[in-house]
Structure formats: structure tokens, C-alpha cells
């Protein structure tokens, strides 16, 4: 194979680009995902330091991350970060918040009820539905175990 010909170059690009892309994406996802979870832990320290109870501190950490992700989405910065971070910003609670806000921003022009009101759930709806459905299934099994078997 002549690596200086056009065909040779195409062959090389084809052979190497997907692999390196996957490696690069994975490294970025790992670093961003890790850093977001790390900042969540540091926020928890901060709220505990402010004498907020453990349970409330955990809720506040979630709300803070959701707010930051929502704000960055509204400013158009989230997708610039997500271009590099990939699943690193998707998997933490920031991804959930981003999906809600981005759909809301897009659907705003289609009306307040069937536009914004309905489409705000485009991605978060499946997450909530299947999460709750799994929870109900677990609840039924746990109830049977707790009150009937035991």
C-alpha cells in the first residue's frame, strides 16, 4: 500500500480514526464524569460545613448541579462542553437537567401547552416512567416479601 497516494491515505484514515475517536471520547467521558461527581462530593462538604443536615445537604447538591446544568444549557455552553465530555456530562444528574432544559428551549416557540408543556418530557419522560415503573415492581416484590412471606 502506498501511504502517499489518496487511496492509501483513505485506507489509513479508515483504519485508525474510529478507534482513536472511541479512545479519546472515553478518556474525556471518564475525566468529566469523575470531575462532576467530585464537585458533587465537595459541594456536600460545603453544605455540611454550613451546618445543613446530611439529608438536606444531599438534596441541595442535586438541586445545585441541576441548576448549573440548566443555566449552562440556556446560555448555550452545555452543548459546547458536551461535545468533548460526551457521556461524562450525560450520565450524572446534569444530563437529566440538560435534557429537560434543552427540550423546553426548543419547544418554547411551538406554544406553551402542547409545545413547551408536552415536549419538556421528551427525554425526561422515559427516564421518569421507567424509573417509577421499576420502583413499583420492586415495591410489589418487597411488599410480598415483607408482609406475606415473612
Amino acid at each position, binding site marked *: 500500500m502506498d501511504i502517499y497516494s489518496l487511496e492509501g491515505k483513505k485506507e489509513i484514515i479508515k483504519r485508525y480514526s474510529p478507534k482513536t475517536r472511541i479512545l479519546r471520547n472515553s478518556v474525556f*467521558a471518564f475525566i468529566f464524569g469523575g470531575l462532576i461527581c467530585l464537585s458533587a462530593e465537595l459541594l456536600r462538604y460545603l453544605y455540611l460545613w454550613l451546618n445543613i443536615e446530611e439529608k438536606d445537604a444531599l438534596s441541595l447538591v442535586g438541586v445545585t448541579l441541576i441548576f448549573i446544568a440548566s443555566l449552562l444549557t440556556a446560555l448555550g455552553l452545555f452543548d459546547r462542553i458536551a461535545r468533548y465530555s460526551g457521556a461524562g456530562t450525560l450520565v450524572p*444528574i446534569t444530563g437529566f437537567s440538560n435534557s429537560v432544559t434543552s427540550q423546553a428551549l426548543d419547544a418554547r416557540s411551538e406554544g406553551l401547552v402542547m409545545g413547551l408543556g408536552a415536549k419538556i418530557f421528551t427525554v425526561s419522560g422515559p427516564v421518569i416512567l421507567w424509573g417509577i415503573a421499576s420502583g413499583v415492581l420492586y415495591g410489589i416484590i*418487597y411488599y410480598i416479601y415483607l408482609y406475606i412471606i415473612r
Partner: protein
Amino acid sequence: MPDYLNLFLVFLMGGFLSLIAQILIDLTRLTPARILVAYVCSGVFLYATGAYDTLYKIFGAGVATPLIGFGAAIGRGVREAIEKNGAIGILSGGLSATATGITAALIFALFFSLFTKGGAKRM
């Protein structure tokens, strides 16, 4: 004084869970929405088997911040509601436990969408 080993473990687990999702997106046809659903359901499953509590003791925010933590919160809510209120807890537990997060996400999204002009797709 923060515990540095603890912080390192948080980083490691958060990164690892994101890495798995990224590999799934790159190598399979799973869309981001499916990944999120899979993580929430596995969070409920991990909580139900008791594995989540063990993971949380070691990795803290590393498992709680990814959507697995959201699923585990649903599981914990259902369990505690059943222990407190009986069968009605099957229906009331999940959403009560996650109400703060869901409401926050919806309200911030509503607020920002009302005060910015719609543009290109942002996700």
C-alpha cells in the same frame, strides 16, 4: 479536612460509570435517552439487591450523582414508604423521594425557556 482517598474513589467511580456509557454509545446503537433509562432502572435494581448501599459507603457521590443514584432514590423511597404506610407506599414512594430533583429540573427549564429565545437544538 477532606479525606483524599474518599475523593479519589468518588472521581474513579463517577468516571467509570460515564466511561461505560460512552463506550455503549460509541460501540452500539444505544441512544443517550436509552442509556439514561438503563442507568435509572439499574439504580433501582442495585438498591433492591442491597448492592447500592455498599457502593455508596465506598464511592459516595461517585454512584449517587450518576442517574443510578436517581434510581436508587426511587427504590429507597418505595421501600421506606412501604415500611411506614403499607401497600399504598408502592405507589407513593418513588415520586415523593425524587420530587425535589424532578421539580427543580422542570422549574429551572421553564424559567430559562421563558426568558430566552428558542434557537438551535441544544442537546
